[in-house]
């Protein structure tokens, strides 16, 4: 134990302010997200659910970013692959499963939205939609509220590299730049937008370079390197709280799964390409590091995996048995002041 501590003393994670425990937590959080995702794919193949959109390959960046932020204080605008992120900021496995099965208890939408469309006020996860990139100006608006109300939080928003080509990316970034707002824009560049590779999305450009045109810093980082992600997000957060404005982060990752359960990715990319990227997986990389630093061993790992397995099994079971919304719930909450039956229901 003493030797162990000595080794870790000047280890990278310590230098970054991450204790051994927190780093281990981070690791198991990534694994939890990965296992959730694998379960969801299984459930879809088994016909138990209709649809899943996978985050496999992006968990390391997501969880490392979440660990650099402040739960219940910062505001989060994750995109549809961010299972690792939402788990890390407080959403539970049961809640994710309720959403996957579109059950009434789903905190994101009561079973109204597709899975992966997050929103959970109690965890400061802002409700999101399917049209990509609309959340970027929302994040800027939350950051504007922080400034006007003199509150010390940041907003953190993610999106894909394809989505960074929407006008809302540009308009949101520029607005934030002008007003030096406390917002962090993180692009999870997984190198595909459905079938379209980055070369056809942004040519030879780099997303990170776009920050220059808005007058704030942009960083392209290795999204499979949890330390780089953690440090970059942490520094961006500190910068934002100091009133110095936004930061754009381009985390380079790779979408290891097809776009969604409706997609056949081998129509547009090769098995070899995908396999190559499996070798770069950020979860494995952190595992190696943990092993090297003796923070993880077979026993710890088996124990952790078992716990995860249990949590996922229990949540799957819970969600599967949970009630659906009542049919008439389809017509509620259009407006806040509605009377029961105020829509044209039952015409």
């Amino acid at each position: 134990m003493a030797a162990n501590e000595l080794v870790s003393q000047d280890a990278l994670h310590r230098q970054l302010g991450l204790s051994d425990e927190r780093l281990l937590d981070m690791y198991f959080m990534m694994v939890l997200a990965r296992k959730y995702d694998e379960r969801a794919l299984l459930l879809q193949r088994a016909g138990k659910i209709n649809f899943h959109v996978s985050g496999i390959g992006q968990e390391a960046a997501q969880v490392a970013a979440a660990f650099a932020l402040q739960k219940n204080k910062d505001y989060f605008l994750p995109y549809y692959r961010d299972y690792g992120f939402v788990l890390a900021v407080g959403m539970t496995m049961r809640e994710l499963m309720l959403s996957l099965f579109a059950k009434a208890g789903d905190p994101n939408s009561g079973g109204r939205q597709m899975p992966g469309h997050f929103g959970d006020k109690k965890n400061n996860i802002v409700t999101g939609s399917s049209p990509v990139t609309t959340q970027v100006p929302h994040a800027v608006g939350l950051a504007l509220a922080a400034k006007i109300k003199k509150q010390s939080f940041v907003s953190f928003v993610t999106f894909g590299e394809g989505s960074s080509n929407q006008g809302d990316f540009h308009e949101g970034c520029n607005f934030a730049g002008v007003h030096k707002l406390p917002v962090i824009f993180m692009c999870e560049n997984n190198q595909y937008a459905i079938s379209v590779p980055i070369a056809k999305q942004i040519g030879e450009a780099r997303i990170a370079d776009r920050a220059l045109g808005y007058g704030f810093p942009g960083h392209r980082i290795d999204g499979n390197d949890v330390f780089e992600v953690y440090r970059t997000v942490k520094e961006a957060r500190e910068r934002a709280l100091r009133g110095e404005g936004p930061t754009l982060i381009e985390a380079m990752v790779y979408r290891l799964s097809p776009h969604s359960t409706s997609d056949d990715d081998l129509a547009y990319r090769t098995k070899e390409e995908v396999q190559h990227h499996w070798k770069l997986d950020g979860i494995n990389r952190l595992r190696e590091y943990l092993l090297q630093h003796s923070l993880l061993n077979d026993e710890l790992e088996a124990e952790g995996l078992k716990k995860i397995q249990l949590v996922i099994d229990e949540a799957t079971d819970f969600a599967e048995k949970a009630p659906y919304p009542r049919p008439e719930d389809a017509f509620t909450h259009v407006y806040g002041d509605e009377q029961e039956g105020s829509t044209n229901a039952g015409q």
Partner: protein
Amino acid sequence: MPVSNYLDAINAAMFEEMKRDDNVFVLGEDVGVKGGVFGATKGLYPAFGEERVIDTPLSESAIAGVAIGAAMYGMKPIAEMQYSDFMLPAVNQIISEAAKIRYRSNNDWNCPLVIRAPIGGGIHGGLYHSQCPESIFFGTPGLKIVAPSTPYDAKGLLKAAIRDEDPVLFFEHKKCYRMISGEVPEEDYIVPIGVADVKREGTDITVITYGLTVHFALKAADDLAKEGISAHILDLRSLQPLDTDAILAAARKTGKVLVLHEDNKTGGIGAEVAAIIAEQMLYELDAPIMRLASEDVPAMPISPPLEKQFMLNPEKVKDAMRKLALY
């Protein structure tokens, strides 16, 4: 009661609400130092400072989107679109986002946002400074839409909109700004959203309308009174939700209905009003449901003879009303 014009009533509503609730703030193009291109936000910048009266970059999608974000935090943004013609870059934020936030989150989040936008023609503004965009938004549940015709209604509805917990599009008619004056109480009041108003009682024909054309109808009704025709005029004031009870009551009053608006005819609010009546009280009608609206051309041209030809006016309205009365 003090008299104020329509523009000042709007200005006063914002001023009072900003004083009353420090979550209220204003953002838009030129709304700060300049006080807005029409002067609607005049005096707010000196009174409340640049953090609450924000001159934004020229980007309507961000104006709407940033306002939505702030509204979800719990603030009460009033976003000004310089002309309603220029709010189209923000349609995705308004329809896909603002309108659906409460519903999609199953009541977990909401979006108390007001978007103010000047509509309508008659100011030599040409194609893109004269449009009525109501029909674009009218079919979107989750939005509320108001379009007042008088200073009293403008102030009361804007206050109601600001205090509303859901997104409200506030369509103000730019031709009314300085042309229409009226009594506006000094005390705080609101005009509830969703409630229409009988602007004139009558017995022969019913005109159902909103916005600038309310005044055309009132003027025409005065003239027609001399001809012995008595017109009942309902000002919808709110377009979403429509006040169905008031529409049916007004139609019943005379059995002869003219639906009137400045937005073009096909797909306009008038179609819905006519459809509601045709669905719910067909047998009580004494004449086909008439509609008078702008021509189905893309927008109002600027050349004076073209603008004149395109624009509705009290004469054209009077002709339609007389025709209906004589039916």
